[in-house]
C-alpha cells in the first residue's frame, strides 16, 4: 500500500451553484475511499445559515460512505461564525439548524448503542464568536449543543481571546482552538486548524522519535470551493501550489498519484513545522499547551543552533523561555546564551549564562563560554577567571587546547607575557599542530624580546598555514629586531605577496628599505 491515507479533509465553503456543489460531493465521496479508517472532515463556512445547506448535502456522501464501509469512522466538524442574537434566538437556531443536522446521526447513534460503542459518525460544531456575540446567548447555545451530543468547540482569535477567560464558556466547550488572525476569515481559520494539528503531531513526534520531524505531517488535503482548487497540505495552500481543480472532474486515482508525487518531492517539512510552531508562540494558550510549545521551540532552537543559524536559534529560545515553567528554564537560558555569544550579543549572553548558572556551574563549558563573552568584550581579567575555572574542571581534550589558547591570548592582552608563554607552551604539549598556539607564542616571545623563540614558533605557524600573511609579517618584525635585515625584507615581501593590502608589512618594509638606503 503506497498511497498515504488521508487523515483530514478541509473544505472552505463558498457560495456555489448546484453543479459545483455536486462536483464537490463527488470528489469527497471518492476521497473518503482514501482516508484513514478514522478520519476528520472540516467544513468552514461564513455562517450557519449559508453553510448548513451545503453541509447537509455533503453529509449525505458521508453517511453513504459509512453505510457501505462499516469499519470506517468520520468526525464531521462544521466551522462557522457564532449566530447573533439573544437567548431566545439561539433556541431558534438550534431547532432550525442544529437539530435538523443531528437527525442524520440517529442511525449511527442506534448502531453504536447496539454495539456498545461510540458512534461512527460524530458531528462537531466549531463556533467562532465575534466581539459582538452575546456571551449569555453563546453559553446557552453551547450548553444546548452539548446536551444534544453535538459536542461544540470554540475558535478564538485576537479579537475574542478574552472569551477564554470565561470559565463557563470553557467548561461547555469540548475544545478551544486559537488562531492568530483578527477577523476569523475562512482561509485563516483553515490554516489555524491545520497548524494546530501540526503542533500537536509535532509534539508527539518529539516525544517518540525526534528524527521523524523531517517527515511530512499526517496526510491532509484542503479544498477551496471558491475556485475549485485542491491543495496537498497547508504549506501548499499558503503558496497556492494546487494539485488540480475539482470542477474539472479529476479522477481520484490520478489525483492521489499526484498527491503521492507531491509528498515525495523535495520539501522542507521540518522547516514548515518550525515556522508553524513559532507562529503559535504568541497566542494566549492554556498552560499545558504552552509547555508543549516551549519544548518544541527549544527543540527547533537547538536544530538552528547546531546548524549555526544563531539568529533564528536565539529567536526560538526567547520564545521558548516565555512559555517555559521557571524550573525548566535552565537549559534554555544556557543555549540562548550560546546563541547570543555567537551573534556578538555578549552582554545578553552573560545575562543568560547568569540565569543558567545554578544548573550548569559544575560544567567546565559553562565557565568557558562565560569567559569567552568577557574576552570578546575585552574584559580580559574576567575572561581569565572564566577560562581558569574551566581549566580546573578537567575539560575534554579538544576544549582544553582552546581554553589554553584563550588564556594565553588574555595574558598577552594584559601584558603578562610570561604567563601567556606558560599557558601556550602547555597548549603546545597537549596538541602540537594548531597554528594559533604558534603565532600567539610568537607574539608573546616578541614582547619578551626573545626573538629566537619567536622565530622558531612563527616558522611552525607558517608551515601549518603557508597562506598566513600576518605571520610572515610577524617573522619580518622578529628578524628585523634581531638585526637580520635581509631576512626581514624577505618575510615582509612574502607577506605582501600573500596580502598586498597588509599595511603593517608595507610600512615596515618601506622603513627598512629607507634605512638601508
Amino acid at each position, binding site marked *: *500500500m503506497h*498511497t*498515504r*491515507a*488521508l*487523515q483530514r479533509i478541509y473544505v472552505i465553503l463558498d457560495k456555489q451553484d448546484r453543479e459545483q456543489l455536486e462536483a464537490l460531493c463527488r470528489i469527497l465521496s471518492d476521497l*473518503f*475511499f*482514501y*482516508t*484513514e*479508517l*478514522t478520519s476528520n472532515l472540516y467544513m468552514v463556512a461564513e455562517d450557519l445559515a449559508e453553510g448548513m445547506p451545503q453541509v447537509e448535502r455533503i453529509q449525505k456522501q458521508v453517511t453513504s460512505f459509512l453505510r457501505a*464501509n*462499516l*469499519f*470506517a*469512522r468520520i468526525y464531521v466538524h462544521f466551522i462557522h461564525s457564532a449566530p447573533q442574537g439573544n437567548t431566545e434566538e439561539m433556541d431558534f437556531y438550534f431547532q432550525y439548524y442544529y437539530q435538523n443536522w443531528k437527525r442524520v446521526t440517529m442511525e449511527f447513534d442506534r*448502531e453504536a*448503542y*447496539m*454495539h*456498545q*460503542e461510540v458512534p*461512527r459518525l460524530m458531528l462537531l460544531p466549531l463556533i467562532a464568536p465575534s466581539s459582538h456575540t452575546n456571551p449569555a446567548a453563546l453559553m446557552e447555545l453551547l450548553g444546548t449543543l452539548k446536551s444534544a451530543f453535538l459536542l461544540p468547540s470554540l475558535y478564538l482569535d485576537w479579537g475574542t481571546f478574552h472569551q477564554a477567560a470565561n470559565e463557563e464558556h470553557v467548561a461547555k466547550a469540548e475544545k478551544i482552538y486559537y488562531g492568530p488572525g483578527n477577523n476569523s476569515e475562512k482561509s485563516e481559520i483553515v490554516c489555524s486548524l491545520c497548524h494546530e494539528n501540526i503542533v500537536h503531531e509535532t509534539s508527539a513526534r518529539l516525544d*517518540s522519535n525526534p528524527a521523524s520531524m523531517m517527515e511530512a505531517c*499526517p*496526510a491532509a488535503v484542503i479544498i477551496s470551493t471558491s475556485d475549485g482548487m485542491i491543495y496537498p497540505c497547508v504549506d501548499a495552500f499558503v503558496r497556492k501550489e494546487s494539485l488540480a481543480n475539482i470542477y474539472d472532474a479529476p479522477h481520484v486515482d490520478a489525483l*492521489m498519484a499526484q498527491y503521492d508525487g507531491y509528498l515525495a518531492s523535495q520539501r522542507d517539512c521540518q522547516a514548515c513545522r518550525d515556522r508553524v510552531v513559532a507562529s503559535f508562540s504568541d497566542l494566549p494558550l492554556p498552560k499545558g499547551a504552552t509547555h508543549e510549545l516551549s519544548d518544541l521551540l527549544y527543540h527547533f532552537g537547538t536544530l538552528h543552533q547546531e546548524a549555526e543559524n544563531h539568529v533564528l536559534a536565539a529567536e526560538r529560545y526567547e520564545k521558548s523561555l516565555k512559555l517555559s515553567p521557571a524550573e525548566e528554564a535552565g537549559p534554555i537560558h544556557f543555549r540562548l546564551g550560546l546563541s547570543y555569544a555567537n551573534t556578538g550579543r555578549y552582554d545578553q549572553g552573560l545575562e543568560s549564562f547568569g540565569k543558567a548558572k545554578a544548573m550548569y556551574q559544575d560544567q567546565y563549558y559553562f565557565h568557558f563560554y562565560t569567559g569567552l563573552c568577557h574576552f570578546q568584550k575585552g574584559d580580559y581579567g574576567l575572561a581569565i577567571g572564566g577560562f581558569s575555572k574551566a581549566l580546573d574542571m578537567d575539560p575534554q581534550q579538544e576544549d582544553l587546547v582552546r581554553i589554553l589558547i584563550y588564556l594565553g591570548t588574555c595574558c598577552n592582552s594584559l601584558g603578562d607575557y610570561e604567563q601567556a608563554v606558560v599557558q601556550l607552551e602547555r597548549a603546545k604539549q597537549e596538541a602540537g599542530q594548531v597554528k594559533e598556539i604558534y603565532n600567539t607564542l610568537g607574539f608573546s616571545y616578541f614582547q619578551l624580546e626573545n626573538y629566537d623563540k619567536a622565530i622558531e614558533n612563527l616558522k611552525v605557524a607558517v608551515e601549518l598555514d603557508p597562506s598566513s600573511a600576518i605571520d610572515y609579517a610577524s617573522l619580518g618584525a622578529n628578524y628585523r629586531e634581531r638585526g637580520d635585515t635581509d631576512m626581514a625584507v624577505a618575510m615582509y615581501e612574502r607577506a605582501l605577496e600573500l596580502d598586498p593590502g597588509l599595511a603593517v608589512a608595507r610600512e615596515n618594509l618601506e622603513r627598512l628599505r629607507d634605512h638601508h638606503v
Partner: protein
Amino acid sequence: MNVLLIEINPFAPVSPPISLGYIAAFLKSKGFGVKILTLGEDASVSPAGLKKLITSFRPALVGLSAYQRTMLYVIGLAKFIKSVDSETKVAIGGPQATFMPSDGFAQLPDIDYVSRSSGEQTLLCIARAVEQGHPFSGLSGVSYKNDDGIVQDTEELEGFSDLDQYPSPYLTDVFDYSRMGEAIMLTSRGCPHHCIYCYTPCAFKHKVMFHSIDRVLEEMTWIRKKGVKRFWFADPNISHKRSRIEELLDGILTHGLEAQMWLQTRADLVNLEMMKKMKRAGVRTIAFGLESASERVMPEIDKHLSIEKVVEAIRLAQSQDIEVELFTMFGLPNETFEDAMKTLAFVKENNVKIMGNTNSQQMQIYFGTPMARHYKDYHIRPLNTERPAYISIGCQYETDHMSTDKMAKVQNMWRSHSLDRGRRIVS
C-alpha cells in the same frame, strides 16, 4: 495459498498482535504465505489501500481477531473483503468468537467460520480445507454455515499442551521490529481459577499451558538483539508456578538482558524474595487483580483472594520501588455505591497511582463467562433486549444495587481522581 490475518481496533495504537503472530508463525511453518495487518488508531490505511493489498496478496482465507468492542468493525471488514473478492473465506477468532452463540453467528452473512478452539490448529484446519477446494469438509474446532446458512458445529480441537510446539512469532521474524516499541510475551496460556467475570479460565478449561523457560529466554534475547527493550507479559498469572518464575528471572539476570518489564499476577502469588528478584531483573510495573475492596463483594465474584493479601502484595512491590497497577471493576454482583467507593478509597490509601490500568471500569459481561451464563443468578438485569445475538450483555445492565446513573457516578469519581483522565491501557 495466502492467508491474511487482521486485527482492527480504532481505539488503541498499533501494537504487536501476539495471538495473530502465533497463528502466522504456525501457518508459515506449514507452508502457507501469511501477512499480518494491524489496524490501530494510528494506522495509515485506507479502504483503497486495503483493497490494493487484498487484490495483490490474494488471500484465499482472512482471519480476523474479534473482541466485543471491535465487533462492528470486524463485520465491516468482512463485508469489505467479500466485496473485493467474494470467494475469499473469512474466519473470526478470539474472545468474542469462542463462545459466540450460533444464532449470533447466523446473523453474520460475511463470516464463514467462527473459531471455537485453539487458533493455530483451527486456522490450519480451515486453511487446508480451503486449499484443497473443500472449504467446509473435514473441519474441527469451528462452527461454519452450510449452503442453507445453517450453523454447523464441529468437534473440538485440542491445542498443544506443550506450547513450545508452536513456532515463535519472534524467532521467525513474523513481526516488524523497526516499529516495535514493546514486545508482548505470552509465556503461558490459561488460568486455573474461577472468577465469574473472566473468559480465560473457561476458554482454557481451567488449565494452564507453558512455554519452556529456555524458549522464553531465547525469544527475549532475540528481541533484545533487535533493539527492543520493553516487554509486556500478557500471562494472566505469570507467577502461577513459583519455581518457573524464579527460573525465568534468574535466566534474565544471567543472560544480562537489561529488559524493562510489565507483568501481571495474582496478589497471593508473590513474596519478598520474588519481588527483589523481579526488581533486579528489570520489572518496572506489576499489576494485580483487586476487582473490589469490599469484603461483601469479594466472595460474590469467586476470586478467592483476601484484601489483606492485596495490601501485602502492594507493599512488597512498593518496597522494591516497583510501580503497582490494580485492576478494579464496578457494577459487580451485590456491590453498592458505597462498596464501589471503598475500592476507590483503597487504591488511594495504598498509594497506587490512578492512571493506566488502575483506572477502574464497569464490569463487562462477555460470552463464555459464568456471569454471562448465569446473569440472573447474579441479579444482573440486561438493559438492551434488542441487541444483536453476536453481542453479549457487555456493559448494558443494571444490578439490584447499582443503576446506570450510579455506575456513571462511580465512573466520574474515578475520572476526577485519575492522572490521565481515565485512559486505560489494557483491558
